[in-house]
């Protein structure tokens, strides 16, 4: 699936981020190819979330170098290729999951053959499509946010604690989404405290400390 000389999607060399002149993490060196999953491991405060926000493009590169598909790190080159799912889910509480997905699709575009209704069934929210998000449970909100991953086109997923708030079935759902995404040539960076039972091959590991 991954050939050694293929150009990686994402390449980091000596990457670090500084806050008040103290490095939050790094220096990190890693490469992520299409069809690869990477787990970002580290304790609380080791900078996992910061790394994901940086890779998403919300933060600037502190020191070191980042490349996207062998090119420079610029916004236009990555446009539409990256999806970020953070602690804040980016859902509007006063709107239904369906409306939220429509907005997201309006901004990002949509994968062929998918619809808001079909992906909501896929993440286990049938019957809740038109319920305002504020009435959903924490786990259901998370599922509504995960539905975005299925609906929107992107090669690289940046998932910050995707397992948080989810029950056993929800965790299985995340793993299934990841496996399908990897199998179809996508890539993902996942931070998590819990163990991941991933069946699509051995994931890469990025250690934040030491």
């Amino acid at each position, binding site marked *: 699936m991954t050939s050694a000389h293929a150009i990686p999607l994402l390449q980091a060399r000596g990457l670090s981020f500084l806050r*008040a*002149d*103290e490095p939050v993490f790094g220096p990190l060196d890693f490469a992520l190819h299409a069809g690869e999953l990477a787990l970002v491991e580290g304790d609380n405060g080791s900078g996992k979330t910061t790394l994901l926000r940086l890779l998403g493009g919300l933060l*600037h590169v502190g020191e070191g170098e980042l490349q996207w598909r062998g090119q420079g790190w610029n916004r236009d080159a990555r446009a539409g290729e990256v999806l970020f799912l953070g602690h804040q889910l980016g859902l509007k509480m006063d709107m239904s999951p369906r409306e939220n997905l429509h907005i997201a699709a309006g901004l990002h575009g949509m994968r062929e053959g998918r619809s808001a209704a079909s992906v909501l069934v896929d993440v286990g929210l049938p019957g809740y499509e038109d319920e305002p998000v504020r009435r959903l449970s924490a786990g259901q909100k998370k599922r509504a946010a995960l539905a975005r991953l299925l609906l929107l086109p992107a090669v690289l997923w940046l998932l910050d604690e995707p397992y948080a708030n989810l029950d056993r079935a929800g965790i299985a759902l995340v793993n299934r989404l990841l496996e399908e995404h990897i199998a179809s040539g996508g890539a993902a960076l996942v931070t998590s405290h819990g163990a991941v039972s991933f069946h699509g091959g051995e994931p890469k590991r990025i250690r934040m400390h030491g």
Partner: protein
Amino acid sequence: MSKWIPLWLHKLGSPPTFYRFAGTLRPWFLALALIAGAMALYGGLVLAPADYQQGDAYRIIFIHVPSAWMGLFIYGVMAVASFIALVWRIKLAETVAMESAPIGAAFTFITLVTGSLWGKPMWGTWWTWDARLTSELVLLFLYLGVIGLYHAFEDRRQGARAAAFLAIIGIINVPIVHFSVNWWNTLHQGSTVRILGPSKISTDMLWPLLTMMVATKLYYVASLFGRVRADLLELEGGKEWVRRIATGDDA
């Protein structure tokens, strides 16, 4: 051109280098500022003759006008430093911009107070909505906005970048404010008082004024250096060179 400017700035912009550089030069600037200031005061308060219209009250001009000029000048410096800080992410430029703001605000404040003290005997009122005074007031608010925004952030460098952006917006705003306030003044037939008419100002009055302008500039550099030094120590608290200074290996 676009290559060597950042290179040169990076070299001088390295905090320990600038800390030493500023520490060496600051006493000289301060001494020159004090000498020039003393000369200007002597010339302005003692040597210059009283004005035939305003008597001795006009002597406020020797601090009012240089302060007004410095208020604008420092805003310009702040905006340029802000631009450099935003484009090249140079820490020293951020510091220079943010530490210029209080000095500029101080000079603007002096301008307003001395203007008011001058206005009372001349126009019979402490405050008049004259175009120039009003513009100065708006300038003070611009400074206070920049200072306030800078301190509203927990991360100081992020605060500096946001405030730098505001400073750049502000410098676009300054001429617009000036233009609009002028127009407003003509509309309402406000008191447009010519402090010094088009009549020629005598040399006896001119040289203390110019000397004071030089003195305030030198003072600005001295004050800025002191502030930047204090700031760099704070920002670089964890670094080795600051530690050496703290433990007394260096002055």
